[in-house]
């Protein structure tokens, strides 16, 4: 097994006196799509925000490409190759689509910038059509595409995406997940996404089940029965 690009050891994050994550161990391998699944309030967003640095964990170690980053600022983590697309407020809503993408390539080499933006347009042609439109006039689905486009433009080695499918029509969800898979195949990046939608099983290589701030399972997709996942959401009968 190759070394993980992202590794979290004994991570505990609290909101006041309530611990939202209890000594979590988590990792993601190179070029892997990892799904973090679990019901509302399981701590999925908290885990991603703690990794990205928007939240400060109380305890634990976070390693990215061999660097210990738990005391690094958001910016420093970003410079090392990590990017989080948050669940909400994940676009610059008063800027045009084009400018949203242009500002997101800020850390990339100048020669690569055009290429990254073109790739985002290639994946989501509707964004190219609407490039001059102000972002908050896009539909919900298009805004989600733009958020992922921002992630692509940022060219991060490890992309964390918080609940990309939430609020999307079922038909769109399948297509959206396929696009995420294509991004991984094309760019060889690592994608970690938190999801409530069970369709994530179709694209993830590995799944972490999270419930009440604790890991319930960590399995490669092929070893995972649907019942285990179902239990996670519905509560186990036993």
């Amino acid at each position: 097994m190759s070394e993980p690009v992202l590794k979290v050891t004994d991570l505990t994050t609290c909101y006041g006196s309530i611990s939202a994550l209890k000594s979590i161990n988590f990792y993601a391998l190179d070029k892997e799509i990892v799904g973090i699944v679990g019901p509302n309030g399981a701590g999925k967003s908290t885990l991603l925000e703690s990794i990205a640095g928007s939240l400060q964990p109380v305890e634990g170690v976070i390693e990215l490409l061999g660097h210990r980053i738990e005391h690094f600022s958001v910016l420093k983590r970003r410079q090392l190759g990590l990017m989080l697309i948050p669940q909400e407020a994940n676009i610059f809503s008063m800027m045009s689509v084009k400018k949203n993408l242009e500002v997101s390539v800020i850390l990339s080499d100048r020669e690569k910038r055009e290429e990254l933006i073109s790739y985002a347009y290639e994946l989501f042609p509707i964004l190219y059509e609407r490039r001059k439109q102000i972002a908050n006039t896009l539909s919900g689905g298009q805004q989600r595409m733009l958020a992922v486009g921002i992630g692509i433009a940022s060219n991060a080695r490890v992309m964390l995406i918080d609940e990309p499918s939430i609020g999307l029509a079922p038909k769109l969800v399948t297509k959206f997940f396929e696009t995420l898979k294509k991004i991984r195949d094309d760019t060889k990046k690592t994608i970690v996404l938190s999801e409530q939608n069970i369709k994530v099983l179709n694209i993830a290589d590995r799944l972490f089940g999270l419930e009440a701030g604790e890991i319930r399972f960590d399995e490669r997709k092929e070893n995972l029965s649907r019942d285990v996942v179902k239990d996670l959401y519905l509560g186990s009968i036993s």
Partner: protein
Amino acid sequence: MGGILSLPVLGVAVIYGITGIPNFAIGVIGVFGGFVTWYFLSYNMGLAIAIGVVVCFIIGWIVQRVLLTPISEMGGDATLFFIITIAVGFVFEGLLRAIFPRPNISLELPRIGTISFAGFSVEGFKIIALLFAIGTLIIIRLMEEHTEMGKSWQATSQNLKLAKLIGIKTTQVFSIASGLGCALACIGAIFWGSLYNLQLSSGWDLGFLGFIVAVVGGIGNIWGGLISALIMGMVMSFSGYLLGGEWQSVILYCIVILVLIIAPKGILGSERSL
């Protein structure tokens, strides 16, 4: 009057628009720069103005970098910023008293004369101040369209968290915004000091007036701020002319209260963006 007010108003709008932090010390810092300019004025006018403006930029930068940004990272709220920036203002007013022994100064800049228009005459300086403010605004807008720095400002003002996540150096953006705002206030103070005079405490007038005018225009909304500066300036001039100077502030603040009751978000609505 509105022309000169437009500069501190622009300063307030730039700082609040980008950082989301109201800095009530801006006027005092601007007046501090005005005194610095006055001190060097006998050597060379251009150089003196440049020194004053640069000093204000640096002060604005440092205050933001060592004080306001860290407090904002820790989750400071509006009340805390109100008290802290007022305290910063008193520190600089105290420094003024300590460094400059004179309680009031007048900046002797070459007069440009007055411009007459439709029966009114306007001091040339006021027109220049207004043009300067509009020019600055246009430059900011052009930078937002065409430069990386401008786009970073805009992104930071719209969505701080996402700006950080995509890798914008938001701390630096905040510092530049604060420096720029204080530099604009300084230019406002220089104009003010050459038309009227600058007292040690003038900064509070300039700063609070700038704030109130900005709020009436829609705080953070730069065009609203400029329109409001012009209207408020005219209100002050006319009420002073018709009723006498002592009535100026009565009329002005009654109108401010009225406007804010009718439109709590200001004339053009407030927006946390440039």
